[in-house]
């Protein structure tokens, strides 16, 4: 291909870059740049390309079980109209999944913002519904606990986020940029072994949770979901025959498995969190008269914090998976003497 005669204006390129989902940004923006002729052509080409790239990324990153679970939780807590409004937002969020872990500063800022918001809301409720005299059905001890919880919320969330960042930093990255096929196969085998062990353990834990849920008469839909997830995980832990392939195919196989396990973990984190959310919602429907507004607000704060914790786990882990996939994308094969063809086979 010929080198581009000129380059797109900086502002225009920035807008297009923002519109392209991160996973496809490098290749699509590069292709648009390479074929740039003038701003009009660039805009037309971007309009014809980007919507289909977004749709493709939506399909690629769609985690149907997780999406259905999230929609069900939103439906239970907020009702039908909110679900219809939030569903496209969830799909778009999947398409724009970041290709790296969030930077520590941003992660901590989010934790502080959420805890500050929760604290302001709690203090606001306390100022409107004064604990003395007791009018709202909430006793002063509860108010005091809430006040203390609000005070310690910010350090707790920041510590949790910092812990996640440090834990992800400690994880060993994939080997060097140039690796042999055998080294890549070894790394892939290790990853598969780890994933199968984790799936087995989590499958057993889910069976236990489903049994406990059945015994304590949880929501039957949730018990069924736990049981189904456990069966899937236990079946997924069975060893599979490995196929012999070259470096490129092995890399593609590794990337697909990384993405699949990442999607699975994302769904499971939401599944573990679902009973807590359903319990909070059930508690909301059983509050004494006069305390509905306060309890509803407190539940909202609790749900927001729980969602933050699960989303933080998913973003940290999902970012790490995307980083590994990106690292594999740039990996080159080093040719070892053993993998070189012998002169006799080369002359054939």
């Amino acid at each position, binding site marked *: *291909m*010929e*080198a*581009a005669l000129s*380059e797109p204006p900086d502002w225009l*390129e920035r807008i297009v870059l923002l519109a392209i989902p991160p996973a*496809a940004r*490098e*290749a*699509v*923006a*590069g*292709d648009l*740049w*390479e*074929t740039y002729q003038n701003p009009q052509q660039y805009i037309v*080409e971007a309009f*014809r*390309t*980007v*919507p*289909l*790239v977004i*749709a*493709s*990324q939506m*399909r*690629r990153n769609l985690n149907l079980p997780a999406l259905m679970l999230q929609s069900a939780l939103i439906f239970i807590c907020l009702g039908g109209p909110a679900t219809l409004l939030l569903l496209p937002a969830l799909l778009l969020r999947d398409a724009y999944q970041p290709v790296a872990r969030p930077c520590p500063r941003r992660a901590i800022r989010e934790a502080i913002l959420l805890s500050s918001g929760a604290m302001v809301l709690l203090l606001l409720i306390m100022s409107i519904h004064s604990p003395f005299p007791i009018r709202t059905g909430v006793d002063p001890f509860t108010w005091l606990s809430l006040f203390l919880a609000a005070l310690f919320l910010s350090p707790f969330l920041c510590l949790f986020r910092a812990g996640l960042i440090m834990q992800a930093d400690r994880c060993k990255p994939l080997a060097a940029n140039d690796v042999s096929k055998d080294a890549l196969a070894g790394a892939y085998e290790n990853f598969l072994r780890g994933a199968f062990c984790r799936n087995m353990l989590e499958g057993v834990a889910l069976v236990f949770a489903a049994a406990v849920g059945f015994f304590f008469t949880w929501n039957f839909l949730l018990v069924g979901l736990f049981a189904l997830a456990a069966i899937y995980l236990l079946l997924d832990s069975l060893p599979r025959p490995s196929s012999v*392939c070259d470096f*490129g*195919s092995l*890399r*593609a*196989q590794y990337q*697909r498995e990384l993405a699949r396990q990442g999607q699975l973990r994302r769904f499971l984190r939401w599944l573990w969190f679902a009973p807590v959310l359903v319990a909070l919602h059930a508690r909301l429907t059983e509050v004494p008269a006069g305390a509905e507004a306060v309890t509803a607000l407190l539940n909202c704060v609790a749900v927001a914090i729980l969602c933050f914790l699960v989303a933080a786990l998913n973003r940290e882990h999902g970012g790490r998976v995307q980083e590994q996939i990106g690292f594999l*994308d*740039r*990996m080159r094969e080093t040719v070892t003497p053993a993998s070189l063809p012998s002169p006799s086979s080369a002359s054939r």
Partner: protein
Amino acid sequence: MDSLGQFEQIVLTAILALDANAYGVTIHAKVEDLSRPKKATRGAVYATLDRMEDKGLISSWLSEPTKERGGRSRRHYRIEKSGEKALRESARTAQRLVETIAQNLGGLAWKPR
């Protein structure tokens, strides 16, 4: 194994023909050439490439960043074994179609290489 759609066949053939030089821009150019007189948008090519990669028919990797792309990498594609198999199957079907059409309408002399 899933059978290939017509556009998938064209994109796979383009990757096969381009060999080591198969990336977004060149694949799109080749697809436009192969699907004449129909036009194909680059977005449709990307979506098809993504879908075929998820099916394991092709694989991709990023090249070194280049200056003519504003310091960005190219995403190169190549056909996997399953892709080759699917393309051969499609070619055989196309061959049968051409033979049947030629028998009934005449004038279509096509011999696969």
